[in-house]
């Protein structure tokens, strides 16, 4: 481990030395542009820090408190988890419009298997997770083997899965009180622990298991994408599938694995959704596909594939959360939130294009 660290350090040093003489006329802006190019999560991190600071200064203690800041984490947990799935697919230059539908159908299956068929909660949850994995694998098979465009494939499966969701659930809600009494494991991700709360259990930092799961998931995927062969293959396939194939990457298997993993993560998001809203509701999560793509784009991940960091997607989701809560605390009309998110998307893509020029 230390050997490889040294090796990288040497490379880094050499690189700066080697290009130093060509860079004499380079401005600070160019260096900044270069830094952004090598660290794609930097832009969303800066925007996130700046927006927290901005709202903190404008609103003060009500926003800049442990309880409000951890509330943002709770509010973005579902979008954050789904955005992790979306990131994987978008890194392969694909897109997954079916993420929200898989999420909600998985949660419905978990609930109905436990309540309609009276299966043990563990079995019901396993069934929901398996379903998510299979639906994702089906997307992957259609994209990788049938060679259909990802947009079209997931546009189709989105409708199919959503219709199946309504037909199967009969649009019936399973209430939070019934779940708490009979199958509390379904609400596992809704359990919380607090740091620094007062005697009555108010204030302080509140973390749900769902938030912890989201953070661990993103860190795990960030490691896998950066340091495993599979992760490098994902980037390679997204950058140039033919070149990847020629260099010995099994493009087909990589794509199927990415879509299947995306489906599985969505199923976990479905489980977390039950914890978040307490009940199993087939009408939830309708906008998750758009929200996750928004988070990914604001997170600086290129829709053309092969570039971006999953940490960026998490930041993207958090930026949306910060703006939503911040603007509401300022008393602004909810419409302003959508307006600012729209602006952020355009800015994010513009910055992405600007950074790209460094590569050219």
């Amino acid at each position, binding site marked *: 481990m230390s050997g490889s660290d040294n090796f990288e350090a040497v490379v880094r040093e050499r690189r700066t030395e080697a290009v130093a003489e060509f860079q004499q006329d380079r401005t600070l802006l160019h260096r900044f542009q270069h830094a952004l190019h090598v660290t794609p999560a930097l832009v969303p991190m800066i925007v996130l820090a700046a927006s927290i600071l901005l709202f903190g200064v404008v609103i003060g203690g*009500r*926003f800049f408190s442990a*309880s*409000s800041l951890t*509330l943002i984490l*709770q*509010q973005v947990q*579902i979008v954050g988890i789904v955005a992790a799935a979306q990131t994987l697919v978008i890194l392969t230059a694909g897109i997954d419009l079916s993420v929200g539908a898989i999420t909600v159908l998985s949660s419905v299956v978990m609930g109905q298997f436990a309540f309609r068929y009276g299966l043990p909660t563990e079995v019901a949850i396993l069934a929901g997770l398996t379903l998510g994995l299979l639906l994702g694998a089906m997307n992957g098979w259609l994209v990788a083997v049938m060679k259909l465009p990802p947009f079209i494939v997931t546009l189709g499966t989105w409708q199919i899965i959503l*219709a199946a969701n*309504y*037909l199967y659930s*009969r*649009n*019936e*809600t399973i*209430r*939070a*009180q019934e779940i708490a009494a009979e199958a509390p494991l379904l609400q596992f991700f*809704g359990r*919380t622990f607090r740091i620094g709360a007062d005697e*009555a*259990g*108010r204030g302080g930092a*509140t973390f749900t298991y769902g938030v912890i799961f989201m953070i661990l998931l993103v860190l795990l995927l960030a490691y896998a994408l950066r340091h495993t062969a599979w992760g490098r293959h994902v980037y390679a396939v997204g950058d140039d599938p033919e070149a990847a194939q020629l260099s010995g990457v099994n493009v087909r298997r990589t794509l199927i694995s990415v879509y299947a993993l995306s489906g599985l993560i969505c199923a976990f998001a479905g489980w977390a*959704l039950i914890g*978040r*809203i*307490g*009940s199993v*509701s087939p*009408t*939830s*999560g*309708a906008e998750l596909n758009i929200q996750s793509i928004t988070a990914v784009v604001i997170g600086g991940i290129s829709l053309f594939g092969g570039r971006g960091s999953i940490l960026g997607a998490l930041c993207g989701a958090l930026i949306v959360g910060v703006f*939503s*809560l911040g603007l*509401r*605390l300022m*008393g602004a*009309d*909810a*419409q302003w939130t959508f307006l600012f998110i729209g602006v952020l998307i355009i800015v994010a893509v513009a910055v992405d294009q600007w950074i790209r020029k460094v590569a050219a």
Partner: protein
Amino acid sequence: MKILLAGTALSVLALAGAASAQESISACLITKTETNPFFVKMREGAEAKAAELGITLSSFAGTVDGDHESQVQAIETCIASGASGILIAASDTSAIVSSIQQARDAGLLVIALDTPLNPSDAADATFATDNFQAGLLIGQYAAAALGEEAADARIAMLNLGVNQPTVDVLRNQGFLTGFGIDVGDPNRWGDETDPRIVGQDVTAGNEEGGRTAMENILAANPDVNVVYTINEPSAAGAYEALRAVGRENEVLIVSVDGGCPGVQNVRDGVIAATSQQYPLQMAALGIEAIYQYAQDGTLPEPTEGKDFFDTGVALVAAEPVEGVESISVEEGLELCWG
């Protein structure tokens, strides 16, 4: 040759259609979706009444809420089939008007169910819940339940959407009127100046939206003690947010709809009171009106003092309060839908 054959087949079909229309009365029911329990109940009511009166009923629905195109096709199909009347819960209340006009020109009776058209006189009649009354009842209930505390209540308003559809405005303004708060412009929510309203937010009418909206309002005003919600799923979400901060027993939640999970939530103390509406009744009365119209051309009359036919609303409360009429949870469960 083929064309000729096809033409003959078509005219035979058309003749058959005309013949059967004369023999028996037929009617169409067009709902927003086939999945929402509200519309499922509506369809049950229409089917039962149609069977009773010997009417042939055809049901149509959009694939999702907001699917305007399917509803237009359904109207065209109904006109072509020679139906006597159409019951429609319109997805797009303005855009559907020209298709409705075609149907009325063809001599069909058109009744808007649940959702008034824009303009409301585009249909022959509207059979709907009085949403203002629904809001008024829970407003009066909340004020009576709080008693003297109502004078310094801290109210959170969880609405439907930023585009403020009619039902959203009517329920909100009804609640405020019932509570005794000046509503300002009755055609929009959010312009009130009463300091007792500590926050307004939108929920999209589902659990996740209800929870997030409640959290947002609590972050700014942790001492909220009354919560108005647009419907029962958003009320369930708001309850989760209150439970997360340990305040679920100190806050009074009121809602509108009367779905079975919602009434069960009244029983369990999640929701204090909810205004129940009756989709089954709407459709059954609608079919009766079409039957009348087909028999002797009588048009349905609106309820006195209103520009629509009020299909009724009742307050369901586990703990009745003085001065506000309500039905028990058991009665509510018998009449609930979904």
